[in-house]
């Protein structure tokens, strides 16, 4: 009896310890970024593009990278949705179910998940060259969408698979087709999970540097069209950290801070949206 109580306490302590480690990790990252970047963070930084000599410590801001990153990440997330969504529905047992094709698709997605994003970047770059295009917002969006697709599709599939079979059968029993049941019942029920999947992919996308390095390029200007090159926050961090000047390195930390805030804001917004739309979901 004593041993069982001890066991209970030990494992409880272990769980709290692990939870603490996760929180401490996040807190530490935020603290370091804030401490190192706070002095560079200014209104000017958020609202201006780099001026001459910015990377040597002169005035300007990183509006180009903020706008670029938002355009890249939203574009790529939207594009990935267009593909991930039908794939995740098709993997349900109502359609492909346990067929060989379905398990092949699942394995492929898992493999794609593990592919380093620099490979997507290199692949995207080759495609761009082949099509006679240069590094551009469009190229970046496509490469980033490839990075996001496996994460999104698998997380969505997980969410949709949690919808109870009996609930789907209730719709089928009234004469609903697969598609009607998916659209009107399954989607509503799985919407919070689907939003989480989209958010997960967005977070991965906006923080990815390697895939956009060759495909989106880098520029000090704001993008005017899909075919212009764009800057991005992860690359802004990368380039500025690589300089020997402390002021510029501090700006890199400020960029990282801005990146974190963007992810946080999008996350909170999608949670709010999620709780609104899940009003009707069954628990």
């Amino acid at each position, binding site marked *: 009896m004593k041993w069982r109580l001890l066991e209970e306490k030990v494992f409880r302590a272990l769980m709290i310890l692990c939870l603490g480690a996760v929180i401490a990790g996040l807190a530490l990252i935020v603290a370091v970024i804030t401490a190192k970047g706070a002095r560079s963070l200014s209104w000017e930084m958020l609202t201006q593009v780099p001026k001459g000599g910015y990377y040597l410590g002169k005035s300007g801001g990183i509006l180009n990278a903020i706008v670029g990153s938002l355009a890249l990440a939203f574009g790529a997330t939207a594009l990935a949705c267009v593909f991930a969504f039908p794939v995740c529905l098709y993997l349900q*047992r109502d359609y492909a179910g346990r067929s060989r094709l379905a398990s092949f698709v699942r394995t492929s997605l898992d493999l794609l998940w593990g592919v380093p994003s620099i490979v997507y970047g290199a692949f995207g770059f080759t495609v761009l060259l082949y099509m006679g295009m240069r590094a551009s917002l469009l190229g970046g969006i496509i490469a980033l969408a490839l990075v996001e697709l496996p994460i999104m599709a698998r997380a969505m599939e997980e969410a949709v698979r949690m919808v109870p079979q009996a609930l789907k*059968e209730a*719709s089928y029993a009234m004469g609903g087709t697969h598609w009607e049941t998916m659209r009107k019942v399954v989607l509503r*029920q799985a919407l919070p999970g689907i939003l989480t999947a989209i958010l997960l992919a967005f977070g991965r996308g906006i923080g990815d540097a390697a895939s956009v390095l060759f495909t989106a390029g880098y520029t000090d200007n704001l993008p005017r069209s899909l075919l212009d090159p764009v800057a991005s926050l992860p690359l802004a961090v990368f380039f500025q950290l690589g300089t020997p000047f402390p002021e510029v390195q501090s700006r890199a930390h400020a960029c990282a801070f801005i990146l974190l805030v963007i992810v946080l804001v999008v996350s909170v917004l999608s949670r709010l949206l999620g709780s609104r739309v899940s009003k009707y979901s*069954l628990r």
Partner: protein
Amino acid sequence: MPHISVRDLTVAYDGHAILSDVTMDIPDRQITAIVGPSGCGKTTFLRCMNRLIDMTDGARVRGEVLIDGANILAPDADVISLRKKMGLLSQKPQPLPMSIYDNVAYGPRLHGTRNKRQLDAIVERYLKLSSLWGEVRERLHAPAARLSVGQQQRLCLARGLAVEPEVLLCDEPCASLDPTSAQHIEKRFVELKQDYTIVLVTHILRQARRLADYIVFFYMGELVEHGPAEQLLNDPRDERTKAYLSGTIS
């Protein structure tokens, strides 16, 4: 001619027989209770009636279920219009993730009713028929999930009726309900048999005694005996039916 007749129905999961050679007619506009111990194939039998059995992996179905003379198990049968004809009330209420109103309007909308006033009338009519209207008329647009389980089951009844089926398939519809809600549902059944053929799967023998006009007894996947309730309950012919009715097997 009987509305539903079953001919040599055999169902197997992965080579293991669940139902074998079931042949019988289900009487029109009566309550037919299907009784038998757990795992005897009652639910599988019901799932053949609306082809939900198609959704079960590894199920093989042979034989015929004739509804108005047409074999619904034929590969080219129109499953959508079959399911429109056969309403389902499942064991655990499954409200759809939408409002009370939209739950009832779901079926009619699927089958083409778009007019708002028509839908309003349908919703009111079937909520009244399942005696839920008084409790929900003020909050028709509240989530169905917030209703109590007993109310949810009556909502599911209303939703099923709104599709205007000819037959109601009920799979232990009172199993997850409190006694009062169960009584509510049973009362509705007695009223509804004027207009519908009701097939009620139940493992509660007393419920079958209270409601059934006709009783079918399954045991280990085999149709043992069927007949008018009076006769089967008071004068069973098969030893297994006798044992089941006396409580020796359950």
